[in-house]
């Protein structure tokens, strides 16, 4: 196994362990150090990679139609979609109204533009 692949494996393991037991982070790190042994030099890289995985897994992108106060909406989204910690927002006027939410796994289409596209496809008989 090459170094990069090994670091990826350790990073994924660290991320999953911390996600399952966030309170036991000290114990998790102690175990990791013990397991790494002479490869302790990889630790910074493993932590950095785990952070990247965290950002990738927990981050979402929110596209909104207008520049309104979106704190309420972001709060409600975080409540509805568990596991999203960080939301980046971007204005997309083509949505007309509503929003689109894009995470690592899902794409929520909740805009008038998407409603119109759905309607158009229904008229064309594509669905």
């Amino acid at each position: 196994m090459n170094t990069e692949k090994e670091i990826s494996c350790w990073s994924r393991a660290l991320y999953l362990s911390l996600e399952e037991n966030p309170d036991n982070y000290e114990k998790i790190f102690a175990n990791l150090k013990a397991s790494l042994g002479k490869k302790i030099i990889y630790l910074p890289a493993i932590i950095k990679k785990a952070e990247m995985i965290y950002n990738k897994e927990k981050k979402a992108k929110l596209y909104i139609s207008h520049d309104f106060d979106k704190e309420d909406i972001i709060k409600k989204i975080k409540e509805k979609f568990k596991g999203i910690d960080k939301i980046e927002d971007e204005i997309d006027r083509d949505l007309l109204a509503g929003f689109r939410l894009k995470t690592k796994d899902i794409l929520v289409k909740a805009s008038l533009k998407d409603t119109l596209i759905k309607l158009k496809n229904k008229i064309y008989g594509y669905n």
Partner: protein
Amino acid sequence: MSGLEINWKILLGQIVNFAILFFALKLFVYNPLLSLLKTRREKIEEGVNKSKQAEEKLGQIRDLKEKMERENEAKKKEILLKAQEEAKKRSEELVKKAEEEREALLLKAQKEAEAIKEREAEATKKKIIDNAFLLTEKLLKESIDATKGKEISEDFLSKIKV
């Protein structure tokens, strides 16, 4: 009457001479001449017979020729009739084939015209729908402000079920 007396010796001599002449003539002239005449008559009869046979054969040949001519004429007529029928049949077939091809072409053209018509209708319909949606989008874009946008976003969000 001494001048008119019969001299029996001379008479006998004359009779003998006559008999000898008779037999000699019969032997050397009459019989060969008769035989010659008989042969000639036979030849003439043979010639007449042959002539009759030839006449008969000629008649037969003439009959045969006439018969053959009649047959040939009939055959010729039959062949001509057959050829005419064949030509008529082929002509009818050609006409029929041409008619079928014409109908097939007509049908194909009709189908193509219908397909084009349908495609045009479909394209027009699509264009109308696209334009209607573009217009709707434009109107919505112009009429929805930030406040309304927020309301709609919240409405969408409230309807999402996770």
